[in-house]
């Protein structure tokens, strides 16, 4: 075990994957000798050579197009998109190609060995174009896994599982936590399950669902609620697609209440999908309407970032409203 921040855990995960399998290749803008703008790929080129860790030209659609071809040839392609906000030039390659490769060929060809890593999320004074949470755009597209870690331990284990999984994975890294989140991380090889949520705190009165950097926000809100005698069950969804409805439904059948928190705008956000599924599966157990505490339906702001974010206080207020419905 070693103390690592989230960046170090990602870096460690990449080193583990590349040491374990010659076919793992890491590429993207500035990921080579420089080690990436956040340093997630530090020292990879030194360790594994320029053929396996390399810079690409500045073209997101080119990076993902290249990655699709490389993965379909049999390599384990780990492509970095420098910011989640810049993934959209590659939207066609991801939605029409990556996600449909296996299906359209009847399983003859696949880019299942592709993992796309990208930093996402706000809280870093990044404005419109360095803060977005794009998970819902991709969750709408069948054929992609979407995975979001909440801390360094989760990041390494989920990243290793994502790289080795035989489905394309969009791996969203909460950049607000890159250096802020530190915990014990095994130096050995380990994997955490994909498509499986984790109950990070047991409780009896209300279920709180979040992912990535928002998990610690709902944890803080739960502490405040506890002072009011409210017992919260907290679930880190970990995988947005396919997601673990069973764990959420079992929890809601026990607590009777559900609050979902995400940074992305409210309308069409993934909380809507969770709410629709849970009201279907748990209708008779619900004691109050399912509440979404999310970003506003605006472009991601700069001066008003603090007001925009679905923070601890908004979550705490949401818990009270749901409890006292």
């Amino acid at each position, binding site marked *: 075990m070693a103390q690592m921040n989230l960046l170090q855990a990602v870096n460690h995960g990449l080193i583990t994957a590349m040491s374990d399998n010659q076919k793992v290749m890491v590429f993207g803008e500035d990921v080579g000798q420089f080690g990436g703008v956040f340093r997630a790929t530090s020292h990879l080129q030194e360790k594994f050579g320029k053929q396996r860790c390399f810079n690409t030209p500045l073209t997101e659609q080119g990076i993902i197009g290249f990655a699709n071809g*490389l993965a379909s040839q049999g390599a384990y392609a780990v492509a970095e998109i420098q910011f989640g906000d810049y993934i959209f030039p590659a939207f066609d390659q991801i939605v029409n*190609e990556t996600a449909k490769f296996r299906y*359209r060929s*009847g*399983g003859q060809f696949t880019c299942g060995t592709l993992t796309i890593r990208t930093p996402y999320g706000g809280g870093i004074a990044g404005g419109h174009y360095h803060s977005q949470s794009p998970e819902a755009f991709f969750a709408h597209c069948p054929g992609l896994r979407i995975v979001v870690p909440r801390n360094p331990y989760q990041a390494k284990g989920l990243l290793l599982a994502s790289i080795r999984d035989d489905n394309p994975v969009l791996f969203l890294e909460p950049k607000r936590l890159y250096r802020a989140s530190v915990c014990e991380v095994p130096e050995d090889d380990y994997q955490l399950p994909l498509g499986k949520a984790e109950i990070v705190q047991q409780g009896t009165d209300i279920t709180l669902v979040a992912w990535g950097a928002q998990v610690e926000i709902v944890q803080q809100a739960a502490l405040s609620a506890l002072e009011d005698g409210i017992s919260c069950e907290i679930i880190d969804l970990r995988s947005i697609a396919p997601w673990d409805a069973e764990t959420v439904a079992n929890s809601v059948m026990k607590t009777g209440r559900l609050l979902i928190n995400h940074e992305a705008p409210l309308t069409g956000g993934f909380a809507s999908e969770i709410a629709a599924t849970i009201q279907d599966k748990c209708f008779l157990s619900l004691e109050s309407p399912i509440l979404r505490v999310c970003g506003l339906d605006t472009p991601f702001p700069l001066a008003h970032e603090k007001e925009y974010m679905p923070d601890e206080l908004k979550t705490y207020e949401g818990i009270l409203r749901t409890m006292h419905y």
Partner: protein
Amino acid sequence: MQDRNHVASVSTTHQVRIIENGLLEIPMLQILSPDGVIQGQDEPTIDESTAQRILETMLFTRILDERMVSAQRQGRISFYLASTGEEAASVASAAAISDQDMIMSQYREQGALAWRGYTPAQFMDQMFSNHNDPNKGRQMPIHYGDKPLNFMTISSPLATQIPQAAGFAYGQKMAGLDAITLCYFGEGAASEGDFHAGLNMAAVLACPVIFLCRNNGYAISTPAEEQFAGDGIASRGIGYGIKTIRVDGNDPLAVYAATAHARDIAIKHACPVLIEAMTYRLAAHSTSDDPSGYRSKKEEANWQRKDPIVRFTAWLKRKGWLDEDSLAKNESAMRQTVLTALKAAEKEPINPIDDLVTDVFDHVPWHLKEQITALKHHIQKYPDAYPKTAERQQ
């Protein structure tokens, strides 16, 4: 290469001189004239059996196209896309590479697939979306794909295969394979961002890939002069630092020679090569298109005189490599085989309903299991409304 990109090695000038015509002279390689006479001094290095097989495959492709355009008109299939007039560009290029090389095509390169040995039955199974199609009937007619023949499944979005071909070729190189990727596309697709991204990636990352552009004059109705203002597609290769050649796309010998040479270069130097094949789409864009709305009969007639099949037949005759009787017999046998395969394939059932949800992921996840179970119950309740799958559930 790096020096050239560095400002220190750029020469200086002291005059304001805007470059108004930076066009290079990029001639078009032609070995056979339109009437089938060898141009230049050297005899082409192609053997008799390869030459005969190229002619047969071009003929087969044309027969298939004619038959399937009719089948679409008769309402037997929903859609078809013919390659009439462009057979040389795909058949002769596929003939010049190894069967181990990956082909990533656009959608008008059925000739390359026929060269690889795709049978009339296999073509038909895909077009009728039946259970024998290895792609499981999931895409519109003509979106072929066959792993054993190293022919990547086609997708409709244009130019997406271009950066993918760069990546695939990089993988071939890293795996130490004696193989390249041949990537086809049209001059219209070359306006897509993926073309520029893909060529640049391939050049910078030293990928052994041949990019073969069929410049057939039209993107549906849009003529080439409304598609680009530069010197075709070949001039762009030079801008990206890619070895480039322009060929007469209706001359099988020119296409063959250029592609064979390009493959040698791609393997030996681990680099991309761009081939621009100048040709003409004698066919409509697809069965949903009517070219009389945007081009003249006179223009079409002019290109009919450059027909690659006529040209190649004339050369083979001159060469003494053509037995006209056996060719005529062969042609009538091909027509019969195509028709028989069509009749057989249209009677075959589609895949069972469970295949609606397989291959989305490596395993069928919980939500798709729920959805398919609900759908099956629904079909059982209303079997008459879903006859293709209701029957197969019994």
